[in-house]
């Protein structure tokens, strides 16, 4: 009884299990995130709902002139925002948390990024389900335009991939980047159309719309989920182009400096 592998022997193709590998990495990430907590998996549902309740009560007291379906309005923006926030925050430290792998085995480290995003994407998917369930209580029918939502999800994933490639590489040399990014997110929240509609702020400062692709992504996601409208294709195309440029920059930065990861982290 040997331990050699039947037909595949020595010269195995190490990409034959690529998708399994990415899946197993994100599955364990997911597990680790809620390890040792009592509610475990249910935190994925509880966290956005609590946020929703707080924002709903705060903002509906501030703004007297309410938007229609205000709860769902906030919720549809909030889940996109939370995905963006979680995925980038997790992604910044991916090289550090996966250091035990980078150091000891030969692997394509881009897989680590993919699996990191996939973990957040799982939570995003669950949140969309929760949204659909909540929307039943508001007796709003699910619109057929929901079929355009995956396009927005794809755009935001490309954007996040590019951003975490850049941020995690910076994190090798400059560990403060995580804290700075958190502060940046704190501000970014307010210039995104989460608790207001696009018209309020972007008519005064149209530049914000172009600097911050997330605004367009949120608007288009909301169009699909809540409004029953087609996405604004101009904005979607602009956002996609923006995300691809960020991804391109990310890949260049990553290729140039990734080798430092094992030495410096």
């Amino acid at each position, binding site marked *: 009884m*040997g*331990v*050699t*592998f039947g037909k595949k022997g*020595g*010269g*195995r*193709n*190490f*990409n*034959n*299990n690529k998708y*399994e*590998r990415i899946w*197993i*990495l994100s599955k*364990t990430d997911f*597990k*680790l995130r809620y*390890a040792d907590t009592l509610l475990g998996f249910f935190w994925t549902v509880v966290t956005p709902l609590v946020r929703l309740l707080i924002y709903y009560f705060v903002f509906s007291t501030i703004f007297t002139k309410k938007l229609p379906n205000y709860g769902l309005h906030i919720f549809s923006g909030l889940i996109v925002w939370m995905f963006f926030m979680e995925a980038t925050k997790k992604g910044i430290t991916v090289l550090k948390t996966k250091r*035990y*792998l*980078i*150091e*000891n*085995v*030969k*692997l394509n480290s881009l897989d680590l990024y993919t699996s990191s995003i996939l973990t957040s994407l799982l939570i995003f998917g669950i949140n969309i389900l929760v949204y659909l369930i909540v929307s039943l209580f508001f007796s709003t029918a699910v619109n057929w335009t929901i079929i355009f939502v995956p396009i927005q999800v794809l755009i935001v994933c490309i954007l996040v991939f590019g951003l975490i490639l850049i941020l995690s590489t910076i994190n090798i040399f400059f560990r403060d980047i995580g804290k700075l990014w958190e502060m940046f997110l704190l501000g970014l929240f307010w210039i995104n159309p989460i608790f207001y509609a696009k018209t309020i702020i972007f008519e005064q400062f149209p530049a914000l719309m172009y600097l911050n692709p997330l605004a367009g992504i949120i608007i288009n996601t909301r169009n699909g989920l809540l409004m029953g409208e087609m996405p604004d294709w101009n904005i979607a195309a602009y956002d996609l182009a923006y995300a691809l440029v960020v991804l391109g920059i990310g890949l260049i930065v990553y290729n140039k400096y990734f*080798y*430092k990861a*094992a*030495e410096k982290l």
Partner: protein
Amino acid sequence: MKDKDTIIKLENVSKTFWIRDTKPQKSFRDIKNLITGGNKHKIEAVKNVSIDIKRGEFVGIVGANGSGKSTLLSLMSGVYKPDKGGKAQINGHFMKLSLGLGFNAELTARENVIINASIMGLTFREIKRKFNKIIRFAELEEFVDTKIKYYSRGMKARLGFAVAIHASPEILLLDEIFGGVGDEKFRAKSENAFRKNLLEGRTIVLVSHNLNVIKDHAQKVMLMHKGECLKIGGHEEIFLFYKNTLKVKELKILA
């Protein structure tokens, strides 16, 4: 044709680290250093090393603590990039084993084995087939679902070695896997694995203070001293040189 069999190739490889001391910042000068990057010092961990390792070779690396053995392994694996002027190449998939590394402490043995095996290229079906063998080899049947953080050093070493053998990477870089474990049974078992053809066809680089293991298994021994490679050759030649030139205490193991 000759190059096809070369698995690891180092050519004039050096590695210099710039370490910045982290002291609490007290004075203006300290803050200035922080910005200008002053207050760094240079560590030349490996100096101008060249070696060719062929397919199926078992190479031992010996030397005192801090002589650059572990850095050399990281250079071989490509995880560290050599300084300018040097060239390091590795052809094939490797697994580097050292005590306590390679596992996520928060995960159970089962999860860690699955992740490691998956990264080594095993499919779920293969992992399923090999899983019990791995655990049996490591003799950890009772602790499969225990988190690695509760494992002893010896248990971690056993698990790591078991995965390495069964996950079948072409190249094994072993860093002091027996060091300080004090587990005779595991040592005997691993040596047995070296002896039998469990590892046949695989290229192995073993860093160890245990000269007996190196003497029994390594075809080629490399002697490191203060970052330099003093000599590469058969174990008799190297140990004699080691004994005469460096007069290191550890040699009493050889008796």
